[in-house]
């Protein structure tokens, strides 16, 4: 058990000594300093120049995105590179990519909570926000790729004069429910987690308008222990619900591909493989965001190297799961004796998209292997590079899955090479702009670290602590 005297003032808690659990929060922090640090970012009267520059770039990219979406709706889906046979192009790839990234937030919030991993408290607010914004970016693409986006409401079972209903036997419709549920439940979870912290900001606010705004959001939370009891119960319930939810969402996304009969798509391992891949890319994105944020906002003793190391271990583990799935697909394709399936995999590695395949393999399977070494796991530059590689690799994985299978399926006379257009590229880049716009706003105006949760895992002044 960690006692107050063992709280280390240095910034290294990465030791693996089995005799004692390492402190999670460094730097002699206590309840007051945590509050000051986190609220300080929100209460800062001056806008930091670096934030402003990043925000302006992000906003312009978002503007580009919206302009392109407008162009798409007015002109039609032909502005993309989608063609026959590759009828699903970058929009679907981007959709799966963004939904996957969102999964890490829920995993950190919900699954690590159920596993009593206290280190999650430094990053969960951050990661949950990332989830919401990633799901926003993800939801954009299916909405606009239907062609007549103004009729997208037909996807919902609303009684209408055509007496028609959605087709519930289609995985594309399950997506509507899955992503919709995921977006709303994640938002609820994120918001509920913020209520106590918003109350903290409200109570420190000097300007009445600020106090009223945060007061409304905080719903009058006053830290009552009786309220906390129900709140904690609700948190546990939501964690227990969000865990199968996050698994189900990317499972249903994988069903989009796996329920078909196409070689390369129709394999039973898709659901857990996609979920592992989603967690993989999501954690990589959390690492990519956490490194600059903690440095820039002075949170290095709350989001410590140990937190980053733990995330890197998860990246390694889920990367190995993705590699296992690649190996299974490959082996069973051979074992099945199905020549189309066998061709699909040989084509991936040696066909016209081989370049994409090898980028994927080197980024997803090979590059995370460096995390076997503790030095790599605890080195900021290395983990930042690997995290970015992983995200690149995971985008390419969705690209390889979607496009290489459609490009060459059963009948050679139907084969056709897919080329993206500038609109495709612009929308991908623009979606990053949207994501970062929302994220930068979050960093500036909302408490980026779950203060109440971090305080609850701090070693208590009398020596009872629960750090892992």
């Amino acid at each position, binding site marked *: 058990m960690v006692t107050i005297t063992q709280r280390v003032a240095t910034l290294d808690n990465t030791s693996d000594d089995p*005799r004692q659990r390492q402190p999670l929060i460094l730097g002699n922090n206590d309840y007051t300093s945590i509050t000051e640090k986190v609220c300080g970012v929100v209460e800062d009267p001056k806008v930091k120049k670096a934030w402003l520059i990043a925000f302006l770039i992000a906003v312009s990219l978002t503007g580009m995105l919206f302009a392109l979406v407008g162009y798409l709706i007015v002109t039609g889906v032909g502005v993309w590179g989608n063609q026959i046979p590759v009828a699903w192009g970058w929009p679907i790839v981007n959709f799966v990519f963004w939904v996957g990234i969102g999964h890490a937030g829920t995993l950190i919030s919900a699954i690590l909570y159920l596993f009593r991993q206290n280190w999650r408290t430094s990053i969960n607010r951050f990661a949950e926000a990332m989830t919401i914004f990633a799901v926003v970016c993800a939801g954009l693409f299916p909405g606009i790729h239907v062609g007549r986006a103004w009729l997208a409401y037909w996807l919902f079972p609303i009684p209408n004069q055509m007496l028609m209903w959605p087709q519930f036997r289609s995985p594309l419709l399950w997506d509507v429910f899955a992503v919709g549920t995921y977006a709303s439940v994640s938002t609820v979870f994120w918001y509920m987690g913020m209520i106590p912290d918003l109350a903290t900001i409200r109570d420190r606010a000097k300007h009445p308008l600020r106090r009223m705004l945060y007061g409304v959001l905080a719903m009058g939370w006053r830290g009552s222990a009786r309220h906390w009891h129900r709140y904690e119960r609700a948190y546990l319930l939501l964690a227990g619900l969000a865990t199968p939810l996050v698994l189900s969402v990317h499972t249903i996304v994988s*069903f989009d591909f796996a329920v078909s009969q196409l070689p390369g798509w129709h394999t*039973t*391992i898709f659901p857990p493989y996609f979920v592992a891949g989603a967690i993989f890319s999501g954690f990589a994105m959390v690492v990519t965001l956490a490194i600059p944020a903690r440095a820039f906002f002075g949170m290095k003793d709350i989001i410590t190297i140990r937190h980053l190391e733990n995330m890197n271990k998860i990246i390694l583990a889920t990367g*190995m799961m993705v590699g296992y799935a690649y190996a299974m697909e490959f082996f069973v394709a051979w*074992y099945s*004796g199905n020549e189309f399936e066998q061709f699909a995999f040989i084509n991936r590695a040696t066909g016209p998209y081989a370049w994409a395949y090898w980028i994927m393999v080197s980024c997803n399977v090979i590059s995370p292997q460096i995390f076997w070494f503790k030095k790599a796991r605890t080195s900021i530059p290395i983990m930042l590079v690997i995290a970015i590689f992983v995200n690149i690799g995971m985008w390419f994985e969705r690209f390889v899955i979607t496009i290489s299978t459609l490009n060459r399926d059963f009948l050679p006379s139907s084969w056709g090479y897919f080329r993206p257009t500038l609109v495709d590229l612009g929308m991908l880049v623009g979606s990053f702009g949207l994501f970062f716009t929302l994220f930068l706003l979050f960093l500036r105006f909302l408490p980026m670290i779950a203060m109440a949760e971090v305080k609850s895992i701090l070693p208590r002044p009398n020596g009872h602590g629960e750090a892992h």
Partner: protein
Amino acid sequence: MTPPPSAASDPMQHASTAPLKVEQVTLSGSTMGLAPKMMLLGLVTLGAGLLLDLVAGPKGLYHFAHAYLLGYFFCLTIALGALIFVCLQRLTKAGWSVVIRRLAELIASTMPALAILAIPVLVFMHQLYPWTHAELVENDAILLGKQAYLNMPFFIGRVAVYFAVWIWIARKMLTLSLRQDESGDVELTRKAERLSAPAVILFALTVTFAGFDLLMSLDPHWFSTIYGVYVFAGSMVGFLSVAILGVKFLQSRGVLRDVVTVEHFHDLGKLLFGFTMFWGYIAFSQFMLIWYANIPEETIWFEHRMSHGWGWVSLILLFGHFVIPFGGLLSRHVKRDARGLVFWAAWQLVMHLVDIYWLIMPALNLAHGKVGAPGYAPALHAGFPLHVLDVLAVVGFGALFVGLVMRSMRGVNLVPLKDPRLAEARGFHNF
């Protein structure tokens, strides 16, 4: 966040830091005496099954071969579940499970015996695996294509490799753990943790391919990429049930009392619940994708398991292995209640058996008797074959396995006495 009721008025006080007594951590002589009896009972029952099929059954020992594989694989999955549990707990540097870990290590240490018990499976290869029949393979293009993998020498070699890997990991983990009982050397924990990561990877690959080889190739035309994960999920459910029942049994004999508390049982219950859901998820994924695409070369496997009475077994599996225990294990109170948890652990253990049964036995209906038939045409002629041989095999193996596990406990501490995280394990509280 109500902590469990305890005598201490301050819930934060770590319970039971009292030193451990010998009776709490070692199996008494009288209980140990059960071990050879169980092993003998097991062997005799298996022998009776063999005799019954030789004398009263149709020629060829087909049924006994399948029944043997059933009982054997059931026990193997328990041991594999134990092994992966040890590796995962080491990998995650878990504290709560230290009091359970020794039991898991001992269950896993039966690997060498299980390796020897695998030999009859290899002896029965002709009865079990259609691809071992040259005449069948010659006339079947698909089997010819798989010959590089599905041939007897490679198969035997692979099985040997699987066991070599499992025996090595199990022994290493147990040895490191036992050595720490004497020296208390912290470095041993670090070694075990460092071993656990590559162990998990080796485990993933060996269990997957063992599942492919021993079970999936019973129907060599069929394939599923998720099969390895399915076997893993079932193994975990099986092991967790055994762990709960095993600890309860030991506690009834005075061992592990006040060491493994309601908090640990709660966690085991949570894991059992979680893996029940995971099993359901994997089983559903496999079924849904094959059902939806409706490709005959894949759906035939489920067809075999939905006709001639097998439909009932499938429904029992769906409701019994997933839906009902989901409802049963949902409540916090059930997981913390001794009788409730024991009930559901026993239930899931039986359901795990039904799962293995459902995986293996439909293969008995395939055209084994008609080896000379041109081509490979699975024919359902026997229907749902619940038979006294199956009961004998399961009972026999069950007794044998229990005896083997108990034998491994001879003179061994059932708690890693000098594990650096033991105090944390003994004092931990749940939500």
